[in-house]
Every structure is written in structure tokens, then in C-alpha cells.
């Protein structure tokens, strides 16, 4: 990987924003942080915040609600998005692994791919662990994983030191044309290893998670345990909304006043009772326990690991934060292991 020294990440940002729509996480002044359009001339700082934003970058590619097609009674009209070149600036390693995971799931989806192909991904290594993360345990961070980003920003322990910029793809290299950068002199490999070791220490052993995954795959979690967990699931859809790898959607059809129909697709949640209910009323996942079990099997099942070459959980901890029932990933794994 080519490595450069970068005096200020804002200089790179301004360069990339010249020919692309650039998005960066910014605070909203009300306690929230969101991916926001940021202009080339923006004066706002770019900060290496260890906390990922409450929402991952999922919705940039797999839209929360989108029109799929229109039908006017005779013809179908595609609603394929026309996406201008864009760049996501400062994605954490965990969220990038999730994008790579979704890339596999939506490999044949033209709507997803139209957005994805138009996007340059600029990753950000973490120097410290975020509050609830456990990327070290799940091989998804804190260093941006090879192949998951086009460019990687590497903040430094020493605040006055220049940032480092790693080129991680051809698209990344092309994007730097016209930006003057000096080659890096620091031993960036050693720094990344030290960062990873530090974050792993901060995140600890994660014994509940490790043992919980083993128990799940060994079939050692009984139905009664799943039902106890299911009783705490309100089916709010929070976890599936914030999970960066959740990909379920439902169709929504609306008739227009001229006899036509438009079909939207909207984020769905497998925790809803009706998610798998069949027209006859039969439901293969009729109980809340079965549905909670299925959700976690998708995140930690070895079968899924075999298909996607990794677990479906990237260790961001967002489900812990949004779950009103206290059965986000740590809640579930703790209860499972305690039995």
C-alpha cells in the first residue's frame, strides 16, 4: 500500500469534494451526529471520533425507502437511481466491513449497485475503542480491513503529527491525482499494529460474546432461553434499522389516481411477527423466541459465515444502544452465557 503524509484531512476532503458530493459525520447540535453533505469549501473540522455515528452508511446504498418501479397499466417504468459521484469521508473499519458484507448480499441488485458504484469510500482507523464496540473480537477493526476502502485515513497518537493517508485501491489512487502529497516516512505498519493492540486491550476479552457464539453454534441455547429473550423483544425494529448488515426489505405498493401502481421497497425487520407469516396464517417463526433466535443465527451462525466469509456482526454495538428490551448483542450474549 502506498502511504502519504497528510498535513490536514480537510485538505484531502476539499480535494475530493471538488468533483463529488462529499458526506461526513457532523454533529446536529441536538446531541445527534449524522452523515451530512459537506461542501469543498466547508470550514468545519474533520475529527477522528472513535464513536461511529448512530446510523451506519447502510442507507447510502440500501435506501430506507425507495421507488423500485412504476406501472401505468400497460408499461413498467424503471426507477433506477441516477447517482452523482459521491464520497463517504471517514468511515470506521466496522462500517466498511459491513459495506463489504452488503456488497455480497446485494451483488445482483441494480439499485444498490448504482449507488455503490458511484461511491468512493474513505476509511478511518481508530486509535481507541468506542464505548460499546468489540471489532477486535470479530475481525472487523479497528484498522480498516484490506479491500474494504479506497483510501484510509490514519490519525496519529501524537496530536501535532501529520495524518497518514493510505491508498487502498486503484480508485483511491486515481482520486488523489492533482493533490500534492509527500510520501510517508513513519513506520505506519507498526503504528497500525500498536493501535489494534491498544483497542483490543480496551475492548477486553469479550468472553460473553466469544462463549455465546460458541454456544449458539453448538446448539447449546435451549428453546426456553430463546423464549425468555423473546419476551423482552418489543419488535420495535430498532436493532434491524441500525444494524449495518441487516438487509431485509418489504414491498409497498400504492395505487395512483390514474389506475397505475408504484412499488416502493422499505426496510423490514425479521423481528416482526408478520415477517414470515404466510397467507394461510401459518408462521414458521411464530414465537418471539424463534424470531430472536433467527436474528442472532444470522449474525453469528457458522452457516452464514460460510456463505459470506465472515460473521454477520461487525461488533459496532449499535443494537445494544437502541434495544428497549436490553437484548442487544451484549444483553443476549450475557444472558445466554449466564444460564
Amino acid at each position, binding site marked *: 500500500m502506498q502511504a502519504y503524509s497528510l498535513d490536514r484531512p480537510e485538505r484531502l476532503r476539499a480535494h475530493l469534494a471538488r468533483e463529488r458530493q462529499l458526506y461526513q459525520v457532523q454533529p*446536529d447540535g*441536538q*446531541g*445527534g*451526529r*449524522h*452523515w*451530512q*453533505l459537506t461542501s469543498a469549501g466547508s470550514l468545519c473540522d474533520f475529527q477522528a471520533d472513535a464513536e461511529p455515528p*448512530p*446510523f451506519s452508511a447502510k*442507507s447510502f446504498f440500501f*435506501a*430506507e*425507502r425507495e421507488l423500485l418501479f412504476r406501472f401505468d397499466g400497460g408499461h413498467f417504468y424503471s426507477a433506477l437511481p441516477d447517482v452523482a459521484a459521491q464520497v463517504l469521508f471517514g468511515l470506521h473499519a466496522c462500517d466498511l466491513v459491513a459495506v463489504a458484507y452488503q456488497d455480497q448480499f446485494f451483488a445482483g441488485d441494480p439499485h444498490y449497485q448504482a449507488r455503490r458504484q458511484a461511491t468512493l469510500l474513505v476509511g478511518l482507523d481508530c486509535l481507541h475503542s468506542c464505548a460499546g464496540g468489540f471489532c477486535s473480537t470479530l475481525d472487523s477493526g479497528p484498522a480498516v480491513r484490506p479491500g474494504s476502502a479506497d483510501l484510509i485515513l490514519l490519525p496519529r497518537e501524537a496530536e501535532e503529527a501529520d495524518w497518514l493517508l493510505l491508498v487502498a485501491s486503484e480508485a483511491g489512487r486515481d482520486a488523489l491525482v492533482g493533490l500534492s502529497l509527500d510520501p510517508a516516512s513513519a513506520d505506519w505498519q507498526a503504528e497500525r499494529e500498536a493501535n489494534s493492540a491498544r483497542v483490543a486491550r480496551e475492548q477486553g476479552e469479550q468472553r460473553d460474546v466469544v462463549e455465546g457464539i460458541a454456544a449458539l453454534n453448538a446448539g447449546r441455547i435451549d428453546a426456553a432461553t430463546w423464549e425468555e429473550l423473546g*419476551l*423482552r423483544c*418489543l*419488535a*420495535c*425494529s*430498532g436493532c434491524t*434499522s441500525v444494524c449495518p448488515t441487516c438487509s431485509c426489505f*418489504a*414491498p*409497498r405498493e*400504492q395505487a395512483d389516481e390514474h389506475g397505475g401502481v408504484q412499488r416502493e421497497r*422499505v*426496510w*423490514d*425487520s425479521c423481528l*416482526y*411477527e*408478520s415477517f414470515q*407469516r404466510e397467507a394461510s*396464517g401459518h408462521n414458521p417463526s411464530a414465537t418471539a423466541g424463534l424470531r430472536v433466535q433467527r436474528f442472532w443465527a444470522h449474525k453469528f451462525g457458522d452457516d452464514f459465515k460460510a456463505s459470506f466469509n465472515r460473521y454477520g456482526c461487525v461488533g459496532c454495538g449499535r443494537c445494544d*444502544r*437502541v*434495544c*428497549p*428490551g*436490553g437484548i442487544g448483542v451484549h444483553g443476549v450474549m450475557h444472558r445466554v452465557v449466564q444460564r
Partner: protein
Amino acid sequence: MRVTPSICTFCGVGCGIGLRVEEGWVIGVEPQPGHPVSQGQLCAKGWSSSFAVDPGNRLTTPLIKEHGRFRPASWDEALQRVADEFGAALQALGPQGVGVISCARATNEDNYAAQKFARAVLGTHNVDHCARICHSPSVAGLARTLGSGAMSNSIADIDLAEVILVIGADVTENHAMIGARMLRAQARGAKLIVVDPRKTRLARLADLHLQLRLGSNIALLNGLLQIILANGWENRAFLAARCEDIEPLRRHLAGVTVEQTSAQTGIAAADLERVAYLFSHAKTAFTAYGMGITQFQSGTNNVIAVSNLVLACGQIGRPGTGINPLRGQNNVQGACDMGCLPNVYPGYQAVSDPAVRAKFAAAWGRPQSDQSGLTSLGMTKAALAGELRALMIMGEEPVLTDPDQNHVASALAALDFLVVVELTLTETARMADVVLPAVAFSEKHGTFTNCERRVQRIRPAIAPPGTARGDWQILAELATRLGCRGLDWADAEAVFDEMAQLTPSFSAMTYAGLDLHQGLQWPCNAANPQGSPVLHVEAFPIGRARLLPVSQVEPDELPDAEYPFAFTTHRLHFHYGGGSMTRKSPLLERETPAALLFMHPEDGIALGLRDQQAVGVRSRRGYLETRVHLTDDVPRGTLAMPYHFREAPCNRLTNGAQDPVSKMPELKACAVAVVPLAVGVAPRAQAGAWQESAHASL
């Protein structure tokens, strides 16, 4: 994408949300991280809010009914029609002949404008809203015992409680973020006690579930209190310092035995004693209750019985304690606070007080009537008697949510003129002569007040559909046409400022202050400029609190040979009110169960019913058909139905018998009979429906 901070519009919890907007379209909703109430979480309804405000079936233009059909009309024509009709009614019957039903979903600004419109423009105190059918007994009961009907404490006090007592509230489903907070409190060691005739989710997770017989609340609360008094577990220091004499209550309860209480409520004596011990010995006990206390003909006395128990144990006036009625709508607290009640002006300033009337007459420049106003059910009755001619309903759906549907529908049909201000063409709007399209919460500025008295701002995220207008702007236009310019505010903040100026408990509140503190809890005045998280710390509004003797009152209608089942109503986590917003979500709509009548499996066997089989349900007031869901959520002999669904509107069955004090109808208990329909037959949605064609006046 832009994210506009706002407040969820479903229940009274008041969760902080961000509206995610793309190209003028709310594509989603996210929880506001670090919000003092919701702490970065939401329930299923909150997460689905984007569909609720979808332009899909929103009204975009005023509608006028001609020959039984609606036609689009200009604002000018529609407003003039409304003004003319109200003018005619006023001329014919005077101010008592017109009324306004305001809305617990609308903002404080809209509600302030609604009661000002009624009182200053129409000259009547005939203004009410649906608090009548949720917490009017709390307002009445707690006014008698404490002097204030709102939650005495804050939601965050749950974090400080040793014991959490929940009575008649399905908190994880209806106030999910409060339920979640209770579960977190239990996980850190608090004892969770749930009193409910149904095995709710929270009841199943509780340390103790008292599954009382439907309608035996006072027997239970009196029984618990008598155990406490008999053992000397009451808080004597608190009683001596803060309450009036408990002796009359002590004498009233002297004859009550544990065995009697057990027999009346169906709860084992040991459980009664354990709960009495835990509640009285806890350093901090947080008491929350819901419709399972208020929606009875004994609603006010039920509230008083809760208050007696809490006062006797001194579990109020400190952090981690309190009497906490959980309010239903996002702004039902605010609609009450704003004076959309026939007997009070904003801030509960009594209409009966000549000085108060004089103050508002001077401020508004309009004489104030000394004739008492009608409640919403009073207006229904007056309409049937021909004594109320013109009615405005803002955003409420009484046809689905009031008791005895056929009665309500025929009352609305008996009016000379009905105008409904709505987002969509609801069942109630269909009965109107004129329908005016309103803007949704995502399209306007304003404030909502959650159940812990926290006033919070909402902001426009998108443009309204078509020509829809804000409620207070509509009222201002009508006022002008009726010859009163007093509602011509420049913006929502100006409405708020006028209200705060006339309302002592809001006197130090401003929009800027609300922004700074993530909302402020009233009273917020010179003495409490940062608001008041805990009430009654030093004294009660009436000075010393009152412990008032009350006795068990059975439901008006008990099961008998003809109607053998006790029948109650409830709500589902996924739906809200009449479903006009939640049912627009394809996901929440999909969650609607096919079977809506909840019945114990053994009752099912006794009737020869299979799960999901179609049944007819009949009460003395109406009939409907649905499918039966066999579940041990309900005990034997008791049936329950959620009230969200127009296909099977359970309020066609419920009883209009009223609490004599608050006029709360007894929505929570009546008697029904169940008739199995043949296997394979589908229930008919229209069976038993009120027929418009059957009505002579149309």
C-alpha cells in the same frame, strides 16, 4: 439527507426523534441520542413515523359535502361556510349551541388557540378533548387529594426507585420507553410489581403479578392499605407533617380483612401481604397507573384509592417516588394544561372563579361567559337532544374511540353542522359537512407536553401537502370571519408567549429556554426557572394532602346468564388510537392480528372454538364479528379486544356508564356474549355497523 429534531407524536412519553428528510420527503425516523426521556431508543410506532406522515392519503384541499358526497372546495368557500354555519347556530341557540372538540395530538399552540376560539370568539366553554376518556378521573381525583392531576415525578425517577408499582397500564406496549426504563430498573435490582387482569408482557417479566379480577381496583388498593395500617407500616412522620387526618380513612377500612380482599380480587392473601410489605418498606416506590384505573365508572375513586395508598406510605414528594398517571396521547397533558376542558382556562385556572374570568376577558378583550361548558359526551347528548347545532372536531376520532359507537355516530348525524379538521379522511371526518386539511407535526412549529410535564419543541421538516394549514392558523381565519382578530398571531412562538403570559405555571417558559434545556417541566416560573422535575416536595397545592375514604364499586355491567363474559379493551404495541397513522405503515399494518378477540384457551374449549375461528360478539349496545385468539393473556371468563381497528370496533360493545365526577365512560369493563360462527366462515367487517342510510336526517 437532513435530520430535523422533533418529538414523537404517538404516546405521552415524548421521545426525542430525528426526522430523516430527503428531497422533501420524510424517509425515516431515528432516535435522538441522549434525549432525557427516550435515551436514544424508540418503539415500533416511533420507528415507523415516516409512513404516518406520508402524503399518500393526506387531505390536500378543503372538502364540502353536497348531497352526501364530498367535493373539493377553496379555503375561502370552506371557511366562509364554517363561519356562516357557526354564526347561524349562535343566532339560533346562543353560545351553548356550539362547541369545539380539540385534540390531544395537536400542539399546545393549537390547543391554546382552540379554547381561545371557543371562549373568546364563540363565547362558550363547550370545549373538551379526549382526556375525557383517558385521564379526566386523574385530574378530578388528584385535584381532591393533592391539588394537581399530572405526574408528580419524572420518568427518570424510575432509575431511583426501589419498588415500581404499575397498576392497570400495559407499559411495554403503550409507553414502551417507560416500560423499557422499568425493565432496566428491575435489572439493577428494583422490585417490579404489576397489577393487571391481563398477563401483559410486563406482568410476565415482573417480580410479582397481581392478576386481579376486572374492576376490583378499589377492593385491592383498600385491602393493601388495610394490611399496612393493621401492621403499623404506614409512614407516620409523613402523615403527621404533610397530610390531613387519616383517622376517617382508618375507621373506614377497619373492618376490611385480608380474606375479604382476597375473595373480592381473586389474589392470594400471601401475595397481598408481600406487596403491602414491599411498598410500605421501600425507601422509594414509584407508582404508575394507566387506563386500567381511570376507565371505570368508579374512575375518580380508583384514583383516590391509589393516592391513599401512596400518601399513607409517604411515597411522594421525593425523587424515585410519586403518583404517576401515564398519559395516552403525545399532548394530552398539554391539551389539558392549555385549558381545552370546559371548567378551566390554561394552567387549570377555574372558569367558576370570577376573578379568573375577568382576567381573561381583559386579556382577550372579549366578555367571558359564566355559564358552565359541556364535556365531549355532554355535547354528544346535547346534539341528540337538538341543543347543540354546530360542532368543530380537531383531529379526533370519536366515532372509533368513544364508547357506544352507534350513539356517537347518531349524535354527530343529528348536528346541523359538523366541521372536522384532519390529516386524512377518518371515520369521523366522513360524517362532516366540511373537512379542512391540517398540517402534520412534521410540517409545523409548536410544542408538545409529555406526561412528565415536559414541554418540548417540534419543528417543520417538510412542506405540507397541497394547501393544508396549521390548526391555529385555521382558527385565526375563522375568528376573523366571525369578527374577532384576537387570534392573528405572527407565528407559533407568539401563541406560546401569549399563553405563558396568562398562565402562572408557564410564566418563565420561552422557546429559547426549551431549546437550551431539552424541554422544561412545569411549573416553570420565577420560583422554578429551570422547571420542576419533582412536585410536592415541600407542600401540596392544597396544602395538606387528603386521604379520602372510598369503597369498591363494581362495574356497571357484570357478566350474567345472557352476557356471560367480562369484557375489557386494550392496545397493541404496533398501533395507536384509531390507527389512522400507524396503519399507513405497511409493516405495522401487517402486524395487525387476524384475530382480535383475546380469550382463554379453556373458554375456547368450553365454546367449542378453534383458534382463529370467526365469532360474533354481542353486548347490550352492539354486535361485531372478528376471529378469536386463544391465549392465556386473559384469565378464564374475561375477554379483551384492542380498539384500533375499524373492521372490528370494540367500542361498539363498550358501556357508556359514567364516572359521576369526571364523566369518564366505563370503557374497561362490560359484559358480552360470544357466538361461534361456522368453521370456515369469515367475519363480516360491516356486521352490526351503524347504517348511515338508516338515519332520517340524511
